[in-house]
């Protein structure tokens, strides 16, 4: 499928390099624009001609059967794929008017503005406090101790973890339960004050109650951040996402408002997947 997967027919997609314009009250600011994105692992093409626009302060869910390239695509957005030597990327990923893949783009700067939460919680082997305070301190966002404490409290509150950990901030982050660890990782990501937070199946390693907590959290966080989440769980996408993209074999089959997508999918493949024929 080669056509631009844009939401709503009346959406005017500006040409590459032009500023985004709000043309409809129902439409949101464009945050990330992807054009003709191809990606290869060695000789195997994993992403084929992706075109998609992701909107600011919304939750966009990427769904699809395993191996469809949704996680790979997510990792293109903050160039985490650079860490894999055999990966080759072509095409445009534009954030804030800049081509992410250009030689001039500093991937460290990019990752500061595009945070990420991983499938398995991966707190650093440091205290809870340090887990959150470390990155902002390195980025010179805070320096004095009191500033750090304020920031840590705010990030932990935003992540809904503050009440559970406020008395044990100096215990190791690994001492928390899985769900708490994942929220710590979210707190760690938002403490850097990014624009976008990428979430790679953030709840797949968690129990149902922790999952629900994190889903609620995503709903709150979208007030401040653009959230792109990969999920293998269609119900989750239906619950939390404003927009949903359906990936299949490295292509985006369908991209639409979540409600529209789940009630009246335009494509046969989407319908089959949503109704559980494969996946």
């Amino acid at each position, binding site marked *: 499928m080669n056509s631009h997967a844009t939401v709503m027919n009346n959406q005017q997609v500006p040409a590459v390099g032009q500023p985004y314009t709000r043309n409809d009250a129902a439409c949101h600011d464009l945050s990330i624009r992807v054009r003709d994105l191809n990606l290869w692992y060695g000789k195997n093409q994993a992403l084929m001609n992706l075109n998609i626009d992701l909107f600011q302060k919304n939750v966009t869910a990427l769904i699809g059967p395993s191996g469809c390239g949704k996680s790979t695509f997510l990792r293109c957005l903050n160039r*985490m794929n650079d860490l894999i030597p055999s990966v080759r990327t072509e095409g445009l990923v534009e954030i804030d008017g800049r081509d992410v893949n250009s030689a001039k783009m500093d991937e*460290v700067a990019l990752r*500061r503005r595009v*945070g*990420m939460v*991983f499938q398995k919680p*991966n707190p*650093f082997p440091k205290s809870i406090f340090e887990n959150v305070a470390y*990155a902002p301190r*390195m980025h010179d966002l805070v320096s004095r101790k009191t500033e750090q404490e304020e920031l840590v409290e705010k990030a932990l509150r935003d992540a809904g973890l503050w009440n559970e950990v406020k008395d044990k901030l100096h215990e190791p982050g690994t001492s928390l339960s899985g769900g708490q660890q994942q929220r710590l990782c979210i707190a760690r990501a938002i403490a850097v004050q990014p624009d976008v937070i990428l979430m790679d199946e953030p709840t797949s390693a968690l129990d149902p109650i922790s999952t629900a907590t994190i889903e609620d959290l995503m709903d709150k966080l979208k007030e401040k951040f653009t959230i792109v989440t990969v999920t293998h769980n269609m119900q989750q996408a239906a619950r939390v996402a404003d927009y949903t993209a359906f990936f299949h074999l490295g292509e985006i089959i369908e991209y639409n408002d979540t409600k529209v997508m789940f009630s009246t999918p335009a494509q046969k493949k989407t319908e089959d997947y949503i109704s559980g024929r494969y996946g």
Partner: protein
Amino acid sequence: MQTNQLLLIFCGALLLLGLLAFFAGRSKASRLRSAGTAMFAQPDQYAWFTVLSTAGPAVLVSALGAFALLLMGADIPTLYLLAASLVVAAIGLMVSLNQVKPDFHARQAIERVIRMTLAGAALISIFTTFGILFSIISEALRFFQMHSFWEFITGTTWNPGASFLASAGRGDGSGAEFGSVPLFAGTFMITAIAMLVAVPIGLLSAIYMSEFAPRNVRTVAKPVLEVLAGIPTVVYGFFAAITVAPIIVNIAGFFGLDASYNNALAPGIVMGIMIIPFISSLSDDVINSVPDSMRQGSLALGMTKGETIRDVVVPAAMPGIISAALLGMSRAMGETMIVVMAAGMRPNLTANPLEDMTTVTVRIVAALTGDQEFESAETLSAFALGLVLFVVTLLLNLVSVLMIRRFREKYRVNNL
């Protein structure tokens, strides 16, 4: 020699008996089988069973006898002992041949014997440890009967010269002093220099190899570093004494300092070079087993690679790195040839690495290569020093094992 011939005859007789047992056992079993009886095992297995029960007890008896001969000083003539063993072998042959019956589990019997033999082999390593402990402790105790333990631990003068006179029948040996503090000071000084060389270079090389180096550099660099560990210590000792020490003396002289040709710096530096691969190899393994999710978590926050390594990877690998350093340290303390060849012989309590110093291992070698009586206090002092060395290295190793176990449990790595 009489005993040698006897031994030869004994072995020959035993071999003959064994062969006899094999064929007798097999033919009986085959006969039974061809007579149509269903048997629990193959004829060969019965044969081996008879061989085992012929030779096994006989060898055991003769070994026990020889041991008694040596250990208790029991006065059993070799001839009688060997004859008794042969009789035992003959009895074993009779009994086992009698055992060759259809309902006898020859295979299980053989496997029991094999299992016990293997377990016996495994016990030898335990015996070795006990042997070391026993030999060191018993001789050390004899030393401490002559000289006080307290003086040994706290004394600052090591001067065994007079005890040598005492064993030669002159003087009473009262002038000898065995204060080991200067020896341990020398050991610690040289070990510290070695660690100052090995830990930074080893750790940083490991970081380069596991975090920065392209794959082909890594595959070359690792075995090349291992070559450093394979060079015999006597070679390092020669290198330290002939090449490095004069260089250090020259450099010190350039700065107007007076350095001894037996300075502590040369053996320390060379020992450090020797230990680099121990530290780098283990650190490299440990850093490689730090889960990649840690690195990704840090990089995803907008950390540079250097910050990720410094603040996340290295702290996570710290228990393993400490473990590697402790292992290296234990090696440095027990290292002998480098210090024997390049460090001094003079016990010298000083903090100046340019002076000559001696170490525990140097004095052990010095005490045991002289021409003294084994009973002399100086010779026995080697065992007292060995005991302390054993205890210290054992503790270092144990702590190191505990650290690496902690690391392993934390990240559930199994290859360390």
